[in-house]
């Protein structure tokens, strides 16, 4: 898994460097440093170091021994968080938060529907009162119009 992450970083670095060389000039017409000066240096350095780290990994010098952990729990929370990101856009801040909290708490704190329900209502309400009413900051409006 680590090697996949490193390769993804390398791919990003290569793409970044390609754009720096293909689209951005090293110097301006007036002879000053151009918009591509910094990106080219950064890009080349990124590619070089990423290759070095991958080579170390493949030679077994630095395997970055990650402790074994609970991938399934991380995947579940990530899925819920990404679902929440979409719901924010669809339903708006308040309703999306209630739905997300109900789903997340049902998974993490099973068998306590009353506690979960209360938390799922109280927290978004508190955040709404703090952000929207007290601080006049924006809450996501949502595609579907709801009163809050």
């Amino acid at each position, binding site marked *: 898994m680590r090697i996949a992450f490193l390769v993804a970083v390398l791919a990003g670095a290569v793409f970044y460097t390609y754009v720096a060389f293909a689209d951005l000039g090293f110097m301006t017409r007036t002879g000053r440093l151009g918009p591509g000066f910094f990106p080219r240096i950064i890009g080349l350095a990124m590619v070089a*170091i990423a290759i070095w*780290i991958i080579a170390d990994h493949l030679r077994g010098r630095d395997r970055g021994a990650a402790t074994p952990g609970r991938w399934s729990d991380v995947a579940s929370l990530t899925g819920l968080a990404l679902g929440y990101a979409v719901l924010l856009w669809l339903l708006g801040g308040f309703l999306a938060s209630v739905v997300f909290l109900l789903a997340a708490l049902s998974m993490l704190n099973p068998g306590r529907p009353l506690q979960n329900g209360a938390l799922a209502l109280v927290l978004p309400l508190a955040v709404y009162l703090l952000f929207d009413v007290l601080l006049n900051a924006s809450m996501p409006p949502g595609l579907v119009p709801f009163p809050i």
Partner: protein
Amino acid sequence: MDIFADLVMGLSLAITPINLLYLLVGAMVGMIVGVIPGFGPSAGLAILLPVTFGMDPIGAIMMLAAIYYGAMYGGTITSILLNTPGESATVASTFDGFPLAKNGRAGPALVMQAVASFVGGTVGVVLITILAPMFSQVSRSFGPPEYFLLASMGMLTLIVMIGANWKLGCLSALVGFALGTVGVDLETGQGRYTFGSAELIGGIYFIPVAIGLFGLGELFYAFYIGLHRQGAGSIVQFQKEKRFWPDRMDWISTRWTMVRGSILGFVVGVIPGAGATIASLMAYSLERSVSKTPEKFGQGEMAGLVAPETANNAASSGAMIPLLTLGIPGSASTAVLLAAFLLWGLRPGPLFMAQNPELAWGLIASMYLGNMALLAISIFAIPLFVLLLKVPYRLLAPAIVVICALGTFSVHASFIETWLMFAAGIVGFFMRLYGFSPAALVLALVLGPLAEEALRQTMTISRGSFMIFVDRPASLWILALTVVLLGLVPLFQKLSRAAGAAAKAGG
């Protein structure tokens, strides 16, 4: 005398009912942020930054600063009672804090950590009061070459401090620099990496990345290590202890420890890139080396708790100096504070104290008051924090996701930034898992545009010659300081490793 008059003026601004309320709320929230494992001041500051919208700048900056140094106080409570540091700067406090609690001395340990934090924080603020105007005066002669070198020095020390994983730290910083180049190039007006998106013209905003990396990323990592499946059963029950207050020997044996820890912590804190974690580990190691009973370290020695506590609080104060006088953040937390300043239209740097005396001195004065408030909160609100520790992580985690998302949206009312925050959270998890440095990425994202602008101006001034960096005396001094710091890094690392090894041997 000028300093005293400025400080009195700052105090008069800080001591208004509303500003005192903001200060107390910030101190309390900072402590709560510190208590939550894996949730450090960077995340707390980034998430709570939007809450300060609608406040006046002095109150807002006072509150954010209180969250920043308050987290140092709170992080130790979990170190002592749970053997789990609330954040990285309180790792060294577990070495002797938890053994003290296991030996039935949790009460004295909690009180002494509060007093040590107060002493470290207050000594740090006194030194800021004296030194910040001097630094500000000196830095007025700085030009683009010096700013480029200072930004580079901050990044270099941070990367080298990472130690064995310096290559991963370097790559993290480069990714941060790369993200910092997105947007319109201010000199030529050409878009860079915008791919036609109007949302990217202004660049990748720093707050969603910081909230994602430090907030969500840490949360995902906490799930990975199974923090959400742990109960509160492992908290040391100290309420039944006979003695809550420290005895005479505790005070006497640690009086010089506090002095050493405060001075060392402050000096390390001023160095860009070093920070409170290194300061606390170095102070622990130093204390052990000067102790007549080094074998007791790691087994519940009060000096082993007091040293890192004074150092990390003094370091968090010290880190304010480069931020206020140079506009260069030395850590991820101060980078978020810099973002807060910018959000309010304020530009920290050499002229900041001269142009904004009310704000600068109001902030410094508030730090005196904040440390006093934190001392009282740390001692008298301990039962409240113990209660908070009993809230299972599985209930806190979804709430943190909601606050991260809604907090990010409220900054610019942007769904793209909110989704960017979620993406940064996933990347942050993998960075944390595989030994990358989210702090280096965030710092580089802030410093990158500053460094690029300074370098391009420098090259224009020097007509493309790099000799300008050695021709100007100020640049030469900074270069020499960088070389000295990089030379000292092996010593820093040796002291940090020694602290860990000693604690393991003792425990």
